[in-house]
């Protein structure tokens, strides 16, 4: 008997994305540019995060027309975002046949207390996290892939670095703990003991762990790989740059060959200006997306 929507199949899908770049796109034309540049998947959106920031107001799931347009344009997997806790947006995206759903803090949360029970779905989910506790809470709810939250739409890598460093440090700490200490650590992290125990045994998250939120240049992508990310999401960085084709290719190659600094130097030449970016000190607390969710 064939079984669909199993943990192996959902987590396995993310395994196939490792070492790759997932790019935000807002139409079929951008999706084709991303695919031609070597993206492993695209995220179909109505607006990229920096435009969501600029527009203000409530940000919701994309118009299904855009999602379908992107799905028809490329053969690589297509992801889409739903609001945190919005069961129906998630079900709609699942019905459209998207390959992965991002329950994302980039959109305005629909539920200020509960994230989705992602185990109830056949489609797999990716969720953002700032630290290990948050990552394990999302995995407990059924997330099959984790990404750093970073600070989306800013072109500023500092928060993604902070989140990935935090997660890796906490993983190393748990790995080196005695089993006697794990229950207390689970309490400190606010994470289920079973998952803390799994991290202790594996020395890594039980699911794929990508970087996201502020990646703007090929060197940023390589930095996140260096810090232990399994791959990279690039949001506003590519299509807000002057030469998206060239930029997208450079980011893909820098991610694959993240330790080849001569190559990254070559790739970084003459790319034109990256997106302008935002100094995070100028953001008000309520403008921060990473603090959405718990």
């Amino acid at each position, binding site marked *: *008997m*064939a*079984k*669909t*929507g*199993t943990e*192996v*199949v959902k987590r*396995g*899908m993310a*395994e*196939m*994305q*490792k*070492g*790759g770049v997932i790019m935000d796109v807002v139409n079929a034309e951008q999706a084709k540019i991303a*695919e*031609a*540049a*070597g*993206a*492993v*998947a695209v995220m179909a959106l109505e607006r990229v995060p920096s435009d969501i920031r600029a527009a203000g107001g409530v940000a919701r799931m994309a118009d299904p027309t855009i999602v379908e347009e992107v799905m028809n344009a490329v*053969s*690589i*997997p297509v992801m889409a975002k739903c609001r945190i806790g919005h069961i129906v947006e998630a079900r709609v995206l*699942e019905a459209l*046949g*998207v*390959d*992965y759903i991002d329950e994302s803090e980039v959109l305005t949360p629909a539920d200020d207390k509960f994230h989705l029970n992602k185990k109830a779905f*056949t*489609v*797999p989910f990716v969720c953002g996290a700032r630290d290990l506790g948050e990552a394990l809470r999302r995995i407990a709810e059924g997330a099959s892939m984790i990404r750093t939250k970073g600070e989306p739409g800013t072109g500023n890598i500092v928060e993604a670095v902070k989140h990935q460093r935090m997660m890796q440090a906490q993983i190393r700490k748990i790995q080196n703990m005695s089993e006697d200490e794990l229950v207390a650590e689970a309490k400190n992290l606010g994470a289920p003991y079973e998952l803390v125990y799994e991290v202790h045994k594996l020395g890594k998250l039980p699911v794929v762990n990508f970087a996201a939120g502020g990646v703007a240049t090929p060197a940023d992508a390589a930095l996140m790989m260096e810090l232990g990310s399994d791959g990279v999401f690039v949001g506003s960085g590519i299509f807000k740059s002057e030469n998206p084709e060239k930029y997208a290719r450079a980011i*893909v*190659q820098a991610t*694959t*060959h993240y330790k080849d600094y001569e190559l990254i130097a070559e790739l970084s030449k003459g790319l034109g200006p990256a997106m302008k970016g935002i100094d995070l000190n100028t953001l008000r607390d309520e403008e921060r997306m990473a603090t959405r969710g718990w």
Partner: protein
Amino acid sequence: MKIGVLALQGAFQEHQEMLEQLGAETVLVKKPEHLEGIDGLVVPGGESTTMGKLLREYNLLDPIRAMGQQGMPVFGTCAGMIVMAKAIQGADEPHLALMDVEVNRNSFGRQINSFETDLDIPAIGDEPFPAVFIRAPHITRVGDNVKVLSTYEDRVVAAQQGNLLALSFHPELTGDNRIHKYFLSLVEEQK
């Protein structure tokens, strides 16, 4: 015995771990110089369009094709099967074009249709194999020298052509290493 694992993108670590558990020495292949001295190559699952592009970008396509034609065993899973095929439905040009098969990409549907099932593969023993299909391709046509190793609902999902082995599914995501063992026996024969 030294096995290269193509590491441009995808689930290459899982293959590496499984091969090392079986006692093989492994090397991750990202550039042509990494191909030196290998006795076999694994092309893992991932995104075939991305891998095809990076294979060209880093001049890996021709040397790997030549090594495969000279008899070096090559083992492809999922995207790896697509990369090895001589013909890809709906695509202008194949990638390695080593194996005399035509494949259909994503032939079981999108991710919500991805599935696990038990598969009969007589070549590796009587016990069914736990096969994980993720946006999987299947073989639509096989050449005269290609042996079908397994089918699922009348679709060819595992095949061998001498030194070349291709699967639609992902043995590296399971705890069952029988197919990797089978591949290593092909490498042993070639040595």
